[in-house]
């Protein structure tokens, strides 16, 4: 019989994985930001406080720049060891050293307050800037790739440094009504791979090894200003006719982006 490993506070790793799905954070009077409800167990004295807590005003001013997200995040504070996990997805920690990384909002689990969290201009993504450790979940192990490359939208977890992300459509898809209709209805056969994200420039792209998306975490709405991507005020040009869903040319809506 294979006996399971029994952990206690002295054998649990400090800021490392316990197994592929569980991450252990050691707090020594320090603080961590974590997504609500991802703590599964802890030893020691740890307090969990919603971000709106007045005491955290300074902390939040320096490392949390996403006011509309605030209700999804908590600050863990105290001393002890804390286990984090997310729906039995793979979790991994990453170190940033004076760098930046943009990640799909549902994949980020926790981060050290030495990093600053900001909303990315790309809707649904968050950017971490600075030096420190963060923990991210993915469906299957994460693969690191170098641009230039094109990736499947569902497999994208995030990207580090500064590759330029853009949409890429296969040309055949765009030609004529028939092409559009075919990809809309699937009639005539589509490969499902006509649309990709393209990355060019220096940096690293993070991919997960399945195309099952992590359930999206609401990132909060961006400010309603013209010129802000995702901000609804700028979306429809004044005076233009309302778009029908699935109308040709309304590509991002068709892809549910």
């Amino acid at each position, binding site marked *: *019989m*294979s*006996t*399971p*490993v*029994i*952990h*206690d*506070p002295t054998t649990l790793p400090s800021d490392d994985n*316990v*197994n*592929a*799905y*569980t991450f252990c954070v050691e707090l020594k009077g320090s603080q961590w930001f974590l*997504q*609500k*409800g991802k*703590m*599964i*167990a*802890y*030893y*020691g004295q*740890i307090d*969990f*406080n*919603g*971000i*709106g*807590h007045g005491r955290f005003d300074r902390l939040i001013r320096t490392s949390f720049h996403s006011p509309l997200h605030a*209700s999804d995040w*908590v600050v863990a504070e105290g001393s002890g060891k804390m*286990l984090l*996990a*997310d*729906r*039995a997805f793979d*979790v991994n920690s990453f170190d940033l050293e004076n760098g930046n990384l943009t990640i799909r909002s549902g994949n980020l689990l926790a981060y050290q307050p030495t990093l600053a969290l900001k909303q990315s201009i790309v809707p649904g993504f968050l950017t971490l800037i600075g030096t420190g450790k963060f923990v991210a979940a993915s469906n299957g192990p994460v693969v690191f790739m170098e641009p230039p490359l094109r990736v499947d939208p569902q497999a994208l977890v995030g990207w580090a440094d500064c590759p330029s992300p853009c949409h890429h459509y296969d040309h055949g898809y765009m030609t004529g009504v028939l092409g559009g209709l075919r990809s809309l209805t699937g009639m005539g056969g589509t490969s499902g791979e006509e649309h990709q994200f393209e990355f060019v420039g220096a940096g690293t792209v993070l991919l997960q090894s399945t195309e099952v998306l992590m359930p999206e975490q609401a990132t909060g709405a961006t400010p309603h200003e013209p010129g802000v991507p995702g901000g609804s005020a700028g979306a429809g040009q004044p005076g233009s006719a309302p778009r029908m869903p699935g109308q040709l040319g309304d590509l991002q809506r068709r892809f549910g982006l």
Partner: protein
Amino acid sequence: MFRLQGSKTLAVDLTGDAVKAKNGSMVAYDGQMTFKKMSGGGEGIRGMVTRRLTGEQMTMMEVKGQGTCYFADRASEINLVSLHGDKLYVEASNLLATDAGLRTGTTFTGLRGGTSGNGLFTTTVEGTGQAAIMSDGSAVVLRVTRQYPLVVDPGAYIAHQGSLQQHFQSGVNFRTLMGEGSGESFQIRFEGDGLVYVQPSERNTVGGDV
């Protein structure tokens, strides 16, 4: 004799003896096996009535024979537990198999059960032998000692063994009511000596979002 075949299949070597397993969890066997549904999980009339009343439903079968029998359930990760006269508390839905010599029963869990999304009652396994429990993702086994009490999220709890006292603690305050809850308002605190099994995934619980 229980052993793991990979992390999601339980292999049991039988030499004329028997094991109790979750009904329908056999995936393969070699040798000669008989499968018999155990009415009331072999707990007698009283056990049957208790299970019916408490909603802690568990349908078990008795597997007897010569050879190797393989069990699995919905690709859950399987964890082996050795019992030496102590008691294992586990949710009926997480129990896959036990030695035939182990007694199973039902017990009241108090408030903890209400928050873990599994009802107010739980299943106990008692005696000396082996049991196999299931988890969503490989479970983490955490030791609780006098110096190191442990706090667990009710949604991630699957089982515990040993002499542990559990306390229910809630961090609900006026901020929770203002919608600034921490998401960790309900917790179970374990004190004493024993082991706690947690899974890296949270069930949907009543207090999960508070």
